[in-house]
């Protein structure tokens, strides 16, 4: 079969954007082997990166600094970590916090002592300081106080911590922001995106968090030794493995997905193409079958350890656990005919909840690295390329594209209060992104442009009466207020997965659905909502530490 014919064959298995881009499904996303942290670890392993810790200057209270290096074939990156003595009452995960348990920067190369001094003066201040183009990322983390103290106390006494306690939290520290791409003076993405190791999305941020994970363990061991002296022990590697780095995420991530539509499209397209390639397979090899079963087992273990008390998550977890049982059961009589993967998928679509379907997707991708890992290369985006508006497009064409790409928006009546119940805005307080209630709060006049559905409907209305062969340029000259949505519409023509096909200002919109979509692409495996707009997750749980990477099997 020719390559073109093969691609066409695969294309028919691609899911419709109208199915994929719904918030409820995006909010049920699971990490896959195309998630960014998996892409990072695969590269670090295949390129034989080495790791060391040239600086460790910590006092007995766990205050000081450290440097962790990742040394690649061409370049070196260093996590510079500062540990602080944070009073409990100052601990906050929100953007409005002003002090943290630990602060970090990812340095481009190996920092000199002058670099370390400069970073010491700025990094602990986070947004109130400045970093330079020598830094790729700026972040901070807070302790999970109860677990952190438990682990230090046990290790100091020569004992290991309680497995159940570890499982309940899953991390010693959690990041509360990881900034990259030019924020606060850090290097612009364009200056480093040409480097293969940084060309994929969020690779610098993932590297920073992975090295932070090692730091969190080193810190508890250090404090245990300071407290217990010769009696103290190190953390058992098997227990250590189950610890990730937590992350506490709020509304800031949500505008990101709307403001970077080409990027979102490319992430989703890669994943959907991967699923389509698997579904198009004529048979299932013994190896792939075993791989699928192992992936489903791992998913069941994960679901067993996944802990959340939140009323939004509890029923989803129940549905997921039931569905994973159903999938395991189904596999007893599978494969069962030609196009076995497609048969399994179609069964899943009819029999499983959204959580179950998306978990099945992840499991189906897992044994097919050779078939799909190349798709990771397509997950970044040249956002500048889609910016320039084509004024010569006719009104007829605009109407056609509105129907094809924004037809889903036309069902909303935006004169109804429940459809405009919320508004997104930026607070004066540390520029924290927030979600307001339009009819009971101040500030709706300063609304951020996340109301894509409403904008599409408004443009469709404003186009009424315009001649079909008139150019878009003329319409926009008369109505510049539609320029933003007109640009999105033109981008959407070639980017079918770029738009979240739900009303983002409606009363029943759940911001955590948007957050989970992005976090699943990062590689987060357990989602614990703390409200409808705040979620805690863990990254790198169960995955190797730097010194274990070389000995691991393929990632």
């Amino acid at each position: 079969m020719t390559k073109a014919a093969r691609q066409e064959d695969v294309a028919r298995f691609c899911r419709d954007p109208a199915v994929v881009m719904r918030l409820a499904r995006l909010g049920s996303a699971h990490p896959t082997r195309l998630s960014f942290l998996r892409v990072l670890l695969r590269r670090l392993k295949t390129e034989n990166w080495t790791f060391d810790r040239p600086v460790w200057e910590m006092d007995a209270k766990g205050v000081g600094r450290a440097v962790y290096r990742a040394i690649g074939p061409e370049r070196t990156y260093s996590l510079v970590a500062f540990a602080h003595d944070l009073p409990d009452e100052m601990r906050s995960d929100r953007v409005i916090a002003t002090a943290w348990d630990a602060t970090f920067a990812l340095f481009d190369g190996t920092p000199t002592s002058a670099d370390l001094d400069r970073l010491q003066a700025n990094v602990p201040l986070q947004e109130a300081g400045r970093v330079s183009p020598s830094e790729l990322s700026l972040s901070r983390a807070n302790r999970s106080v109860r677990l952190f103290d438990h682990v230090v106390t046990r290790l100091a006494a020569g004992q290991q911590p309680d497995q159940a306690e570890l499982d309940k939290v899953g991390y010693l520290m959690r990041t509360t922001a990881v900034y990259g791409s030019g924020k606060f003076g850090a290097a612009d993405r364009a200056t480093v995106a040409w480097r293969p190791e940084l060309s994929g999305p969020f690779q610098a941020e993932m590297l920073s968090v992975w090295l932070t994970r090692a730091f969190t363990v080193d810190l508890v061991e250090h404090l245990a030794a300071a407290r217990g002296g010769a009696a103290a022990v190190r953390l058992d590697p098997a227990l250590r493995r189950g610890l990730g780095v937590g992350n506490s995420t709020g509304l800031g991530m949500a505008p990101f997905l709307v403001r970077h539509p080409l990027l979102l499209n490319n992430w989703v397209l890669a994943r959907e193409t991967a699923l389509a390639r698997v579904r198009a397979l004529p048979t299932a090899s013994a190896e792939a079958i075993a791989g699928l079963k192992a992936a489903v087992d791992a998913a069941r273990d994960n679901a067993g350890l996944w802990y959340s008390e939140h009323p939004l998550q509890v029923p989803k977890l129940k549905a997921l656990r039931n569905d994973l049982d159903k999938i395991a059961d189904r596999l007893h009589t599978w494969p069962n005919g030609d196009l076995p993967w497609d048969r399994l998928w179609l069964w899943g679509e009819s029999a499983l909840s959204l959580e179950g379907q998306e978990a099945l997707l992840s499991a189906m991708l897992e044994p097919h690295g050779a078939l799909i890992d190349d798709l990771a290369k397509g997950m970044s985006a040249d956002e500048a390329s889609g910016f320039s508006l084509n004024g010569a497009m006719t009104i007829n064409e605009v109407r056609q594209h509105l129907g094809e790409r924004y037809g889903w928006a036309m069902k909303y009546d935006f004169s109804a209060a429940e459809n405009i119940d919320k508004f997104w805005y930026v607070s004066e307080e540390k520029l924290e992104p927030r979600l307001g209630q339009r009819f009971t709060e101040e500030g709706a006049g300063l609304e951020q442009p996340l109301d894509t559905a409403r904008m599409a409907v408004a443009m469709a209305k404003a186009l009424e009466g315009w001649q079909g062969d008139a150019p878009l340029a003329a319409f926009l000259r008369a109505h510049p207020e539609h320029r933003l949505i007109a640009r999105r519409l033109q981008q959407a023509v070639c980017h079918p997965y770029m738009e979240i096909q739900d009303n983002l200002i409606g009363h029943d919109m759940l911001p955590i659905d948007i957050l989970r979509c992005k976090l699943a692409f990062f590689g987060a495996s357990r989602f614990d909502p703390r409200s409808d707009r705040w979620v805690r997750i863990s990254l790198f749980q169960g995955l190797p530490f730097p010194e274990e990477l070389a000995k691991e099997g393929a990632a």
Partner: protein
Amino acid sequence: MMTIETAGPALSFSEIEALATKSARGAGFCWGMAEETAFATAWLERFGLRGLDLLLARLSGQDQNATPAIAEICPLMLGTELADFARLPGGLLDVGKAELVVACPAMILPFLCAIAKRDDCAFAVSWRGARLTVTNTGPVAIEEEAGIATPYAEKITIVQLAPAAAPIPDDRLGPLPRPRALPPSLLKALDRFAQRTYVPASEQSRAGAGGSGSDNQ
């Protein structure tokens, strides 16, 4: 008496775009035009043409004197129109040239570059004290530059040229220049516009984000 201002921070290009978007919006531009402003400002900064200074001049003009006459010579509006209408009958590429009066004339250049990129051509641009060529990669062959950064309204002449050689692909342009250290007074002035886009703090507002429960667990 002359005061010398100590250099302030060097904003990344990403920060320049964010500041330009917010200050344009704060000055009253719609979001779509604020996006165009960010594109144009970052482009100018990238080529050492002081986009942020020009932006401040443009926004201050708008703020103090919001008459139609000012809007008519807005380089951002005229630049987007040039780009929007370029391929249409009567547009820049159809006629092959254009003459217009515009304030902060350098702010037109990024839009000409966008047209050059999309339509594979180049432009000779001149106004009093400035003469240069704009290709798909940026401003080249700057023959006169004393008046390049003027905030005043000037009559500019644009003539389409055929590209002399094959356009240079973007990915071989080389690394971005290191951003320049900016005068704090400039940042403060632009920030005053940007601040208008933030909602003031309040107890109710503070409750509009974050999670329930303590972070001390």
